[in-house]
């Protein structure tokens, strides 16, 4: 697997402005190693639903059953939180789920062990939905960045979101490792991100761009304001080469709809964590949640 090199998980790149310095004959190889996320966006570009949950929450061994529940309910991408003691970009709901998951004994090692067989289907229905891991850089550094990427590839994780690893540090230090294992690094933009920086992020990103809906931490926003809509319109008009998903403050059908009008879909996090706490983790409960969002 390690011999497959790719400059990008985005197949469009192969035929456009970059070819990683490989001769044309080799470019076919890259297209064969499709990433589930880039593949998804070639098939579907509207109303995509990405749902976040914290690994090991509410109970340590809930991770894979929640993942399967979300797949069965038809979500397009599953984002699994790697719990951290100091999640500065997260609000109370996700913080508390992180604390609980750590109390339960969750770690990267345990998470990879839990995910080890889900793609193979030897422990239940095969998991085919694209998987992102979301978390903070320090646990990844302690695990070892290369070992982390290798494990992601091994268990079938398609990409990561590491909010406290800014793009420039990623490009300086880690991009070649991520590329080697075909792991996407999803970057965030916010209403305060300058146009020049958005262009830079768009150029250096693959998979999709995570649009943070407002200046906020997770779970702290209620509804979609006029200011937010103006920001969504501004970004939509930029014709970025990457698809966009909107997150933060997406908590019901109405906000999912609005976000989907301006982007390729949306990300739901805190609302789902609250739902798991209040309504349980059964497949039916997850199905019901996803239905209310999609309606």
């Amino acid at each position, binding site marked *: 697997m390690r011999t497959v090199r790719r400059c990008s998980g985005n197949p469009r790149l192969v035929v456009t402005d970059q070819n990683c310095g490989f001769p044309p004959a080799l470019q076919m190889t890259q297209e064969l190693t499709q990433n589930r996320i880039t593949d998804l966006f070639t098939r579907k570009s509207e109303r995509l639903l990405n749902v976040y949950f914290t690994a090991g929450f509410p109970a340590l061994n809930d991770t894979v059953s929640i993942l399967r529940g979300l797949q069965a309910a038809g979500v397009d991408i599953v984002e699994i939180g790697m719990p951290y003691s100091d999640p*500065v970009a997260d*609000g109370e709901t996700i913080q508390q789920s992180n604390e609980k998951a750590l109390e339960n004994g969750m770690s990267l090692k345990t998470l990879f062990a839990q995910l080890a067989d889900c793609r193979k289907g030897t422990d239940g229905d095969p998991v085919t939905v694209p998987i992102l891991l979301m978390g903070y850089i320090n646990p990844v*550094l302690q*695990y070892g960045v290369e070992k982390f990427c290798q494990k992601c590839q091994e268990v079938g994780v398609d990409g990561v979101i590491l909010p406290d690893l*800014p793009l420039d*540090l990623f490009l*300086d230090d880690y991009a070649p490792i991520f590329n080697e294992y075909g792991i996407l690094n999803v*970057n*965030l933009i916010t209403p305060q991100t300058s146009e020049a920086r958005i262009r830079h992020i768009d150029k250096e990103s693959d998979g999709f761009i995570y649009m943070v809906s407002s*200046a906020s931490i997770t779970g702290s926003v209620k509804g979609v304001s006029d200011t937010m809509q103006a920001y969504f319109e501004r970004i939509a008009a930029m014709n970025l080469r990457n698809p966009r998903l909107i997150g933060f403050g997406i908590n019901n059908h109405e906000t999912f709809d609005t976000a989907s009008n301006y982007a390729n879909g949306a990300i739901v996090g805190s609302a789902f964590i609250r739902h798991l706490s209040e309504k349980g983790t059964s497949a039916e409960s997850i199905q019901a949640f996803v239905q209310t969002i999609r309606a």
Partner: protein
Amino acid sequence: MQTTLEPQTSFEVSDKGFYGHFGGAFIPEMLYPNVEELRQNYLNIIADPAFQAEFWQLLEDYVGRPTPLFLAKRLSEKVGGTVYLKREDLCHTGAHKVNNTIGQILVAKRLGKKRIVAETGAGQHGVATATVCALMGLECIVYMGSIDMERQKPNVDRMRMLGATVVPATSGSQTLKDATNEAMRHWINNPVDTHYIIGSVVGPHPYPDMVARFQSVISQEVKKQLLAKTGSENPNYVVACVGGGSNAAGAFYHYLNEPSVRLVAAEAAGQGVTSGHSAATTALGKPGVLHGSRTILMQTEDGQVIEPYSISAGLDYPGIGPLHAHLFESGRGDFYAITDDEALQAGFQLSKLEGIIPALESAHALAALEKMDLKPSDVVVVCLSGRGDKDLSTYSKYL
């Protein structure tokens, strides 16, 4: 090692904000515009003659600088060296913290900010921030761990009296680390009109460098004062306590490139380095990322941050500033782990020998003297970073 991690020989911060392997700006995109605005402007703002005039005037007339450099004769006899105390405890508000808050509030005003947010552990930085906000008429919000609010009630009252809103941080261990998380979250939620006054040489670049520059007045004065008293501006040792490390950064700053001057850092060992109740970061930590910079960090094998412990709330922090991590790794600094008991003894000793009640933080620096095997000819400058009034309730338990 990766490209940004090339070792440097210099102790100055690199363009990307690194000291050797440590530093940088590991921040979520939500904070990028704020931190970038600060990074692009802080050096120009500080260099501006009008800023300099206002800063120095306030340090002189409001803070009461220069602070004295006092030859502690009886303490010197006791510990064996020639010990000078840099009296930061005589600064307005009772500690060195105000040097930094004066500098940062002037920067915030020039950036057009309307509101200040800060974190505090013992409350000294919170008080220093509330003080300058009152002085400048800016709104002030201070996050403080709810456990620290109980431990340091007088400082909570002082902040409130100065007009600040004190918000309890109820997450995690409810101490300084969590107050810092909450202050960062507040900043994420209020990015345009708010400036975050970090109280130590921690956080994303350019904070460690900016705070060190404002605190560097300490060693700038020491050099001049020591020259007048001894004929040389260089001592053999400069000793300071390190939690995040702002008073140490200030006391070391103008000696960083003077290899004949040993830089001595006293960390809090709490109940003992191996007791499981400690804040001795360099003894117990490994490289990692916390609060926006790569530094040495107390953490589990899985990279989860360990809750530190010290009798001194100001040293109760699981990391150290990236400059100090670099001093440790490069061997430029000597790091001592001082237990609660050793610090208490040093605090009582200074009180009786010199009539000065030190803050428990500063008492850790004094306790390091006992471990240094000093000769009478050794000239030692100890940064007495704060006064002990705030710690009386702790001291009184051991009277």
